[in-house]
């Protein structure tokens, strides 16, 4: 047990710092993915001239491996667009791209599932298209997409381990740094793997409970 104490417990501050960076990256990526996914989906459905572009972006984000996207954003975007200008930004932007593609498709399915009559009813009582979207369509989409949104968050957490490759100092980065200092990978890497597995498990368990509770409370047929 001495090894565990020396290599893991005594390094808890470093590992905790790393974990906080992981949380930070994931939170930014998650927020950006939801906004980006919504934007891509709305453009694809309602802005006719931009539809092919939005479709292409969704397909590209979905069909390109996350590691490739990360390297692409990190090495190519700064030359192409002069942005992002830090590894941290490149990390969460790349994570957000992939998930925004998946979420755009989820949102689209959710929007298409809202019966036409409901929109027409909204328009009949004098609501504008934006108000119909905000008050009638999107709340139902949020409800029906909740499980997929939670799932995307776990995907982001899992993929976030890769940002250590571009030297973002997340949990994975700190643990590999410790391995390089001590040359004793067993305890450090096992503990790191356990932390990630427990965190992803907790996120998906809580997320499932939350989306079930939402559905019971607000879902059609909940009375």
């Amino acid at each position, binding site marked *: 047990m001495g090894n565990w104490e020396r290599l893991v417990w005594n390094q808890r501050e470093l590992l905790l710092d790393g974990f906080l960076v992981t949380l930070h990256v994931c939170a930014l990526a998650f927020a950006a993915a939801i906004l980006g996914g919504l934007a891509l989906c709305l453009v694809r459905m309602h802005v006719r001239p931009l539809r092919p572009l939005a479709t292409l972006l969704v*397909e*590209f984000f*979905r*069909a*390109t*491996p*996350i*590691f*490739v*996207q990360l*390297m*692409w954003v990190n*090495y*190519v975007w700064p*030359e*192409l*667009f*002069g942005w992002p200008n830090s590894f941290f930004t490149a990390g969460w932007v790349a994570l957000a791209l992939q998930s925004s593609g998946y979420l755009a498709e989820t949102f689209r399915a959710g929007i298409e599932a809202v019966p036409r009559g409901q929109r027409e009813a909204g328009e009949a009582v004098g609501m504008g298209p934006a108000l119909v979207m905000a008050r009638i369509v999107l709340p139902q989409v949020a409800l029906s997409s909740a499980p997929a949104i939670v799932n995307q968050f*776990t995907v982001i*957490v*899992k*993929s*976030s*381990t*890769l940002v250590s*490759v571009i030297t973002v100092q997340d949990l*994975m980065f700190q643990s*590999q740094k410790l*391995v390089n200092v001590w040359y004793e*990978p*067993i305890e450090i*890497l*096992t503990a*790191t*793997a356990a932390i*990630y*597995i427990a965190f*992803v*498990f907790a996120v*998906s368990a809580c997320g499932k409970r939350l989306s079930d509770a939402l559905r019971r409370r607000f879902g059609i047929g909940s009375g």
Partner: protein
Amino acid sequence: MFSQALRESVDLSLFWDYREVMLSGLAFNFHVFAASATAAIVLGLGAALLRVARALPFRVLGTLHVETFRNAPDYIMLVWVHFVLPLLLGAALGMRIEFHPFASAVIALGLVYSGYYAETFRAGIQAIPRGHLEAGRACGMSELQILWRIVMPQVVRRMLPEGLNQLVSLFKATTIVSLITVPDLMYRVSMVTATEMKPLPLYTGAALLYFAVVWAAASLVRLASERWRQRILA
């Protein structure tokens, strides 16, 4: 500056110059993919059978397998299998063991995706009406015969669309094996970038090549799944 950079990134001739290196790298992605897909499907079926077993210890073991590997990030598993597993095995067997990067890649991806496959198999197995199993027993089939002749044909039929989608995800995941020096396409790109100092066309070329492969595969899967569903539901 922007237009010049754009022209440079669209000008993929540098990537084309290295096409043989790049394609032989892509071949490594396919090798890792084929080997780890086989491992994932076999292990996944094993874990699913454990999860639906009658004895509690088997069920616990199966659930542990699924929850561990389904929730583990690919990258940490890859690093763990490559750097920790050989030490543990070596200590247990009393000798020095090292894994070839290719073997580590196959074991790690095989384990992670076996967690996903186990759930797909389990859903398929549990969807089979009890009466089918009882009918099999009634005509004197052994458990193995029931599994092979009654359960599996229905499971495969039901899980095919999802199983194929998971294969596509697995192929995407093979890009990270470059991080433990399996010489796949991403590894070649980083090596060539180190000598040419031109990441722009090289990484763009790699992204487009992967996109073409994955998009074509995903589209085929979508088409096949639609047809398959129509045939099954008809």
